[in-house]
């Protein structure tokens, strides 16, 4: 009689309404990761003050770079005409030494003086050396710790995990506990339609999170605008993989409180074993072995290609292939194991 609106479209609208009208879910999926990021950015900004002596090695761009550095509060830039200290690991009493050659800027900075990084990055960008043309190192050849830069992959992964776990798995399990799934299971609504309908609003949310994070990264000169497309690709692949894992968690369980507790524990463990808190090279070999088996490690590695290239270990192709394979495995298992109700006959 009536023109029936599409079940998929109505389910998509329902998911959006349930997600955004519920303050608790909206907080954990949207605001919490952004607050986390803002906290790191605040810490990074606080550590940015102080007085720094910076040497700029002789080159055609030397004067332009010195001029840019002198614009930064607390920076005292000088030209350096002596033997390059870069390979010797000796900064000759300076906090940082900048060498420009072949269109690339190489910066060696005292590991304990990471507060200078933000100003250095900004001044070099003003001189025409954006993030793709600069390489920051410590005197021993390592990557200097940058709280701002470290916060971006962490914030991004937390945002994706929150959306996948607290914004997908938890509401589904709560629906099973309340009998909503059981009721839906008696209607003509198909399993696949129901599961697919969860995706659009959550992927839209991920895109918003990626745009915010990418904007911060570009504004802070952590990455070039051209690289944002690749970061978005990584983010979407990672989000789909984490959603598949969220569906897998929600396939059978029916106690949302227990699952929330488990996920609350799982998130920091995954972040730790994925090398976000400490570089994997600093951790025992057993941890590295476990880390190699986690798809989130490859997601972090893929983020690092755009946000912290020096810290990446695998090729981007390897990272993406692992993410796709994990999505297929988690998604396949979730589709096979999903039940409307625990006692459902198959």
């Amino acid at each position, binding site marked *: *009689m*009536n023109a*029936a*609106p*599409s*079940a998929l*479209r*109505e*389910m998509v*609208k*329902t998911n959006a*309404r*349930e997600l955004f*009208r*519920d303050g608790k879910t909206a907080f954990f999926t949207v605001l919490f990761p952004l607050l986390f990021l803002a906290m790191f950015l605040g810490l990074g900004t606080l550590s940015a003050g102080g007085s720094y002596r910076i040497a700029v090695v002789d080159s055609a761009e030397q004067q332009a770079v010195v001029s840019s550095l002198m614009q930064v509060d607390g920076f005292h830039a000088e030209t350096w005409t002596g033997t390059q200290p870069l390979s010797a690991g000796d900064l000759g009493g300076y906090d940082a030494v900048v060498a420009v050659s072949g269109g690339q800027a190489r910066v060696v900075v005292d590991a304990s003086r990471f507060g200078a990084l933000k100003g250095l990055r900004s001044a070099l960008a003003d001189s025409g050396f954006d993030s793709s043309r600069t390489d920051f190192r410590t005197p021993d050849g390592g990557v200097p710790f940058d709280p701002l830069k470290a916060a971006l992959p962490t914030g991004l992964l937390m945002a994706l995990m929150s959306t996948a776990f607290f914004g997908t798995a938890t509401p589904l399990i709560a629906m099973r506990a*309340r*009998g*909503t799934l*059981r*009721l839906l*299971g*008696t*209607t*003509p*609504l*198909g399993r696949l339609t129901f599961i697919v309908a969860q995706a659009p609003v959550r992927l839209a949310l991920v895109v918003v999170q990626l745009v915010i994070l990418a904007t911060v990264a570009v504004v802070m000169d952590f990455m070039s605008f051209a690289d944002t497309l690749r970061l978005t690709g990584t983010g979407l692949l990672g989000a789909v993989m984490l959603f598949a894992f969220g569906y897998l968690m929600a396939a059978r369980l029916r106690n949302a409180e227990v699952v929330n507790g488990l996920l609350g524990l799982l998130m920091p463990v995954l972040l730790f074993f994925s090398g976000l808190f400490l570089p994997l090279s600093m951790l025992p070999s057993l941890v590295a072995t476990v880390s190699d088996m986690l798809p989130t490690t490859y997601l972090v590695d893929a983020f690092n290609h755009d946000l912290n290239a020096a810290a990446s270990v695998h090729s981007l192709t390897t990272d993406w292939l692992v993410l796709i394979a994990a999505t297929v495995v988690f998604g396949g298992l979730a589709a096979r194991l999903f039940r409307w*109700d625990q*006692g*459902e*006959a198959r």
Partner: protein
Amino acid sequence: MQSGICDSIVASLGDLSKHYGSRKALNAVSFDIRKGEVFGLLGPNGAGKTTLLECLTGLRRPTSGSVQVLGHDPGSRAPELRRLMAVQPQEAALFPQLSVRETVDLWASFYGNHDPVDEVLERVGLAGEASQRVKALSGGQARRLLLAVTVIGRPRLLVLDEPAAGLDPQAKERLWDVIRKQREDGGTVLLTTHDMNEAAELCDRVAVLVDGRIAACDTPARLVSELASTSTVTFTTPAGTDLGPLHALPGVTVVEVAREADGRRTVQLRTTDGDLTLRRIAADDQLAAADLQVSRGGLDTVFRSLATGGPGRREEAPIRKEEKE
């Protein structure tokens, strides 16, 4: 002939059993539900009613026996069957952040052919709450919304698990109207209830399930006439009157003093012949009986009797089996 009978049978259970470990929740249950009837499933708590509904709706697989609903095995979860049958479970929360109208719109979208949303909201008495969020509804309103999403798709078989629980008398009347309309439109209803008045009012046939077995299955009127044939005669008499002769009256099985106050006793007799007993008491000058009343047993008497393992377990099955053969 046989084809016509098969067409008229909407659901058929044959020796259906469901065991949970050593516990037999259902034990060789057999009955048919006919097209266009309201079929009531009665039974005390734990009798197996919900398990039976779960087997019938495909949410559980039986241990043995067969179930056919509208020509399908419910266990196969055929999409066609889910279009033709709607289930209102005893308890189920809908989406708390949606409004009443959004909820019914959502359920309407599952069906190609459905009733107008406004008409259904009017029918269940929620037209005034259409824009209210589900989480703000009272318990009774939430149950009416459950009923709305159950009937929106014009199901041929409507399965209602204790639909009147928690409803006020006015809402219960509306529920009954919805059930009657389903029958008028040619649909079939299977409902479970603890309300014998509701069962007597609505059901064309009832089955009483006790300890996982069908204790009786027939029309309410026939069950009452066959299993609740006793009447209760109540009267008052001066305190101290000798009640001994009452035991000798024909058909009287029980004599009780229900109350004693202000020098008078209220006496209740159970009898198989209420009219005769009433006449004898009225004619007995020594009793000086006043306030005479007689009441016949109802479906609740049948239910209590069967639930406590009382007289006359019976099934209507033989007639039906002959028809099918």
